[in-house]
C-alpha cells in the first residue's frame, strides 16, 4: 500500500457525522458537476456567438448572393424577409442556435451538399490521423520526458529539450513537405498523398469511416496495408508535435516529483532507480498528464488543418482550406464550429477526468 493510499485509508476511518453519510457525500460532487455542465453549455453558446458574429462581419451580402445584384428592390426585400435577415440581431442569433442544434449548418456553395453531411463524411479521416498521431506522441513523448528528467542536464536531456522547442518552431506544413520529399520521393518507404491507392478507393464498405478499421472489418488486407502506408507519414508528422509537447510537460512534471522528499526517501531505502522513476515519481503525474494529452489531442486537430492539404488527406482540414479559398462561408463556419466544439469537448472531458481521478480536485 503506497503512502497516498494509506493517507486516503486513514481519512476514511474518520467517522462521518451521521447526516452526511451515503448519498449526502456525493452531493457537493454532483453540485460541482452541475456547475461544470453550465460552464460547458456557456462555452458552446459562446462558440456559436463567435461563428454567428463572424458570419455577420462578412462583407458579402447574403441576400445579394441569393437573388443576384440585378434583382428589383421588392424581390430583394422579400428574400431578406424570407431569410429572416430583417429581424433584430438577437432574434437572428436565437434562430441560428436553433438551426445548428437541429443539425442544420447551411449549404456549401462549392460541394452543393448540406455542410453537416459534408462534415460527417470528412471528419473520420481527420479523426483517424489525429488518433494515430496522439498514440505516437504518447508512446514516445512520455518515456522521453521521464528519461530527460531522470538525467537532468545530460546530453540526452539537452537533445530532448531542443526537440521539445522544435515542436514550437517548425511549421507543420513544412515538416509534412520535407517528410514527403525524403520518405516518399527519395527513399520510397511510405506511400504518397491520399488515404489509399486510387485503384483501391471505395473497395471496402464504409462502416466507421476509419479506413484502418473498415478494411480490417472487411478483411481486405491489401486495402489495410495501403492505408497504413499512406497514414503513417502524416500521423508521424502530427505525432512529432504531440511528442514534443507531451515530452516537455512530462519532463517538467517529473522534475517536480523527483525533487520531493518521498523520492529521496525511496532512494535512501535502496529502491531501484527504475522503480523510483515509474512507481514513485510517475504515478502522481498520471492525472495531470491526462490533461496534457487531452490538450495535445485537441491541438492535433488544429495541426491537421495545415498538413491535410499537403497529403491530399480528405479530412476536415482539407475541406476547410478549400472552403476558405472559395469564400464558402457556410462551410468555413460549419468546420470552425465542429473543430471548435471538438476542441472544447476534449478539453472539458480531460478537465472532468481530472476532477474525478484527482481526489484533491473534488
Amino acid at each position, binding site marked *: 500500500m503506497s503512502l497516498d493510499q494509506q493517507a486516503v485509508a486513514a481519512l476514511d476511518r474518520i467517522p462521518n457525522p451521521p447526516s452526511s453519510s451515503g448519498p449526502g457525500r456525493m452531493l457537493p460532487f454532483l453540485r460541482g458537476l452541475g456547475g461544470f455542465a453550465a460552464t460547458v453549455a*456557456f*462555452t458552446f453558446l*459562446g*462558440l456559436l*456567438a*463567435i*461563428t454567428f458574429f*463572424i*458570419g455577420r*462581419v*462578412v*462583407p458579402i451580402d447574403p441576400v445579394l448572393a441569393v437573388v443576384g445584384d440585378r434583382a428589383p428592390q421588392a424581390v430583394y426585400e422579400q428574400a431578406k424577409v424570407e431569410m429572416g435577415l430583417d429581424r433584430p440581431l438577437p432574434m437572428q442569433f436565437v434562430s441560428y442556435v436553433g438551426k445548428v442544434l437541429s443539425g442544420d449548418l447551411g449549404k456549401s456553395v462549392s460541394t452543393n451538399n448540406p455542410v453537416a453531411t459534408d462534415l460527417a463524411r470528412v471528419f473520420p479521416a481527420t479523426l483517424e490521423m489525429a488518433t494515430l498521431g496522439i498514440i505516437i506522441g504518447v508512446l514516445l513523448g512520455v518515456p522521453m520526458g521521464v528519461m530527460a528528467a531522470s538525467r537532468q542536464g545530460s546530453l540526452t536531456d539537452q537533445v530532448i529539450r531542443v526537440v521539445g*522547442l*522544435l515542436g*514550437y*518552431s*517548425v*511549421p*507543420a*506544413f*513544412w515538416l509534412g*513537405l*520535407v517528410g*514527403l*520529399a525524403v520518405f516518399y*520521393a527519395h527513399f520510397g518507404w511510405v506511400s504518397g498523398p491520399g488515404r489509399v491507392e486510387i485503384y483501391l478507393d471505395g473497395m471496402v464498405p464504409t462502416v466507421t469511416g476509419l479506413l484502418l478499421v473498415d478494411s480490417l472489418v472487411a478483411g481486405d488486407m491489401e486495402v489495410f496495408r495501403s492505408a497504413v502506408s499512406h497514414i503513417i507519414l502524416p500521423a508521424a508528422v502530427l505525432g512529432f508535435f504531440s511528442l514534443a509537447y507531451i515530452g516537455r510537460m512530462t519532463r*517538467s512534471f517529473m*522534475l*517536480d516529483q523527483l525533487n520531493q522528499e518521498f523520492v529521496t526517501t525511496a532512494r535512501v531505502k535502496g529502491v531501484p532507480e527504475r522503480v523510483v522513476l515509474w512507481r514513485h515519481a510517475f504515478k502522481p503525474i498520471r492525472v495531470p498528464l491526462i490533461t496534457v494529452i487531452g490538450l495535445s489531442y*485537441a*491541438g492535433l*486537430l*488544429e495541426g491537421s*488543418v*495545415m498538413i491535410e*492539404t*499537403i497529403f491530399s488527406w480528405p479530412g476536415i482540414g482539407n475541406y*476547410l*482550406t478549400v*472552403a*476558405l*479559398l472559395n*469564400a464558402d*462561408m457556410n462551410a*468555413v*463556419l460549419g468546420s*470552425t464550429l465542429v*473543430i*471548435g466544439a471538438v*476542441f*472544447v469537448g476534449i*478539453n472539458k472531458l480531460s478537465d472532468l477526468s481530472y476532477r474525478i481521478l484527482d481526489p484533491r480536485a473534488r
Partner: protein
Amino acid sequence: MANVTDWLLDDSPASRMQARLGRTYRIVLALAKNPLAVVGAIIVALLIVTALAAPLIATADPIAQNLSQRLLPPSADHWMGTDELGRDIWSRVVFGSRITLTIVLLVAVIAAPVGLVVGAVAGYFGGWTDRILMGITDIFLSMPKLILALAFVAALGPGIQNAIIAIAIAAWPSYARIARAETLTFRNSEFIAAVQLQGASATRVIGRHILPLCTSSMIIRVTLDMAGIILTAAGLGFIGLGAQPPLPEWGAMISRGRTFIVDQWWVATMPGFAIILVSLGFCFLGDGLRDVLDPKQGEKQ
C-alpha cells in the same frame, strides 16, 4: 568602466533612473549566463538587423523575375537557389524578414495592450465586470487559435493587414488571463489602498500602479508567443490568405515550392529554415527571460 558598473549595481540608487538602469543591467547579466538565451537574443537581433538592412544584405531584387535563371540549385551566385520565376531565394528570404517582423510587432502591439487592459480591469473591479470580461475571454481561449484566425481572415478577406488583425484577435485572450491573475495578487495590497485613499481614480490606479507591475510577465508571455504568431502567420500565407504575391512572405514561398518539392527541394525548404530559426530564437529568448524575470516559474522548468 569599473565606476559605471559600480554605479549600476549600487545597492542604494540615488535616483529612479539609476535604479531602473541597474535593474536592466542585472537582467542582462543574468541573461548572459544562460547560453540558450544568448543564442536566442543573437537570432532575434539578427532578424532585426536583416529586416532593417535588407537591401544591403540581399544579393538581388526579391521581386525581379528572370526566367532564364529559373529553378537553379543553390550555388555561389544564388546561395539558396532560385524559384520558378528565376527570383533569388536568398534575397526573398532576407526581404521576407521584414514582413515577418512587421506581423510579429503589430500583433504584439495590438494584442498585448488589449489583453493587459481587459485583464487588469476585470481583476481590479471584480464582480460582474470580472465575470463578463473573463467569460468572453474564456470563450475566445477555448477556440483553437489557428482556426479562429482562419475564420476571421475568411470573413475579413485575404491580405496581410487582415491576417494581422485576425492573429491579434486570436492572441489577446491569453494576455488578459495573465494580467487578471497578476492584478488579483496585488489588488488588495497596502500600496494600492494607499493610492486609493489619496483619492486616485480607478483609471489612475490601473494605469499608473497596476499595469506597470504586469509588464514583466507580459514581456515573457509575448516573447514565448512570438513563435506561435510566426507559425500562424506563415500558415495563413501558406494557405493563401496572408501576404499576397509577389510579396516574399515565407509561408507563401513554401506554398509555391510545393509543386517542386521532389526535384527542386530548395524552393520550399529554404524559407522553412528561416521560419524555424527565427521561431527557435524567440523560444530560447523567452525561456531565458522567464528564468530571469520570473524565478518562481523558472525553477519549475
